[in-house]
């Protein structure tokens, strides 16, 4: 008897509760496409939000609904895009690997400080009071972007500018949002030429506050008028694809180095 009581109790309880679970399964079932689970499991589960949805699960739901493209996850890249596309039987589309670029060359030596900043040491706080640098468009060097990166793909370089490690960057775009001066942009990894300045100051002012600022002299525009224009005292690449590779040496004649090829020290 002593042996039977526990067995009967446990057995009966499990039996009863299993009916509860069957009931719950039948009556309270949430109709959900099993594909959502399937897609969700393929995703990196970083929940970074780079796809524009609140997390990997939400993205999976959107893909299954047809709202998002199979290649919508920038973190997963081509591999995940292909898997997702295969699971759903749709075309993956071409995934262009993007990385983030820091478009400022206001190094410690080039850009002058405005004074001694004693506030909270974040770019955001510094930016609220006009920044610690004389240039009101350049990098503030407090590394908000570095701190926010979930993949440790950024670090603060010796020169006082954040440096991107291409191989770690997943183009999730968190740093882009974190920069109060919008100096970080996502670009295809193959793109080589950038305008490394955001200064809208007029030439003489821009030059005074930072040695590497765009002074809107127009040399680059003359070298490649199809793709580059001047807008608000700043050179702008309208369409990277239209830049003729042969004109690159001419573009690189920029007197301040504000436009040109990516240099070794801009990368990791």
């Amino acid at each position, binding site marked *: 008897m002593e042996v039977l009581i526990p067995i009967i109790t446990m057995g009966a309880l499990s039996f009863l509760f299993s009916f509860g679970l069957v009931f719950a399964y039948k009556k309270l079932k949430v109709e959900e496409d099993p594909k959502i689970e399937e897609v969700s499991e393929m995703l990196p589960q970083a929940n970074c939000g780079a796809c524009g949805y609140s997390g990997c699960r939400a993205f999976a739901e959107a893909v299954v609904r047809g709202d998002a493209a199979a290649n919508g996850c920038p973190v997963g890249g081509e591999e995940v895009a292909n898997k997702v596309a295969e699971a759903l039987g749709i075309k993956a589309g071409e995934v262009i690997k993007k990385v983030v670029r820091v478009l400022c060359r206001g190094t410690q030596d080039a850009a002058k*400080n405005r004074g001694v900043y*004693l506030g*909270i040491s974040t770019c955001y706080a510094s930016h*609220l009071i006009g920044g610690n640098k004389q240039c009101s468009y350049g990098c503030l060097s407090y590394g908000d972007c570095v701190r926010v990166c979930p993949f440790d793909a950024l670090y603060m370089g010796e020169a006082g500018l954040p440096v991107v490690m291409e191989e770690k960057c997943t183009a999730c775009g968190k740093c882009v949002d974190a920069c109060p001066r919008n100096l970080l942009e996502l670009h295809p990894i193959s793109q080589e030429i950038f305008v490394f300045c955001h200064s809208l100051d007029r030439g003489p002012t821009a030059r005074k506050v930072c040695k590497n600022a765009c002074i809107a002299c127009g040399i680059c525009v003359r070298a490649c008028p199809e793709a580059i224009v001047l807008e608000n005292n700043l050179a702008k690449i309208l369409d990277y694809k239209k830049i003729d590779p042969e004109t690159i040496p001419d573009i690189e004649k920029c007197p301040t180095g504000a436009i040109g090829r990516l240099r070794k020290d801009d990368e990791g």
Partner: protein
Amino acid sequence: MIDKTYILQSSPHFKDKDSVPKIMYVVILSLMPSFLTSVYFFRFRAIALFVSCIGACLATEALFLWLRKKPKHSLLDGSAVITGLLLAMTLPPSLSLDRAVIGAVAAIAIGKQVFGGLGHNIFNPALVGRAFLQTAFPVAMTTWIPPAMLKVNTVTFATPLDNLKFQDAVAQGTLTSLKDLFLGNIGGCLGETSALALLLGAIYLFYKRAIDWRIPVGIICALTVFTGIFWLANPDKYASPLFHILAGGLLIGAFFMATDMVTSPITPLGSWIYALGIGIMVGLIRLFGGYPEGVMYSILFMNTFVPLLNRYTRPRILGERREK
């Protein structure tokens, strides 16, 4: 690469002759009468405790500044000295020095630096140190010696509040006289024995406007009303409000601990609520709690409400409409 040395800081920008070190030194100066009376009453023991507490506080502060790579100038702004001074004042004179050092380290490390240093701490660091010691060494922290002036041949010596709580002093008629309480010729923590010395310091603080007057006034009023009700109802069982104000750590707590700028509310209404809370808690603990004294726990308890009080008693911005 600095052309002109401007100082860049976000608002509010105070232009005032007060600075952190200046206020801190006012507080240190105001503690001097109590410091001197405790040295008078407890002689070498007092000096040894003060030196070891202040020394340990400074050393811990220095260690943390070095670990966290913070500028060293905040070491000498006086805040660590005050923590050490206040902690020593709340210790029983018989406490061994190594224990005092442990308390001082805990005060700075757990009470202040883990929160991010001066201005970021939630609790009064000196009281955190004392609470740590109270929990770590409950026996040593409740063993008292008589002041050197009194010739009593017992090893242990009860504080006036111990007498009240455990010996039923009101009924026995052995309650410590108010005169002894006022002058400090009693057993107790180093700095809390002499009400006179504490009041002298408090007057100087008021004169310098270094503390918010609402907090001590609120605490004393709340305690007076609370203990007064019971005293009037049954004077044979409960001690008078004046006894409660002069005995134990109430005065030092009300003037020097609860008024700590970092851990007290910033709005007038908030200060009133905070002070009343402390006063009533002290009354509750002393009359009905398990401990004879409750100033330390009352202040620490109300410290936790400070962020909330600051938030809900925030004055309306000029022209702002009340949200519906």
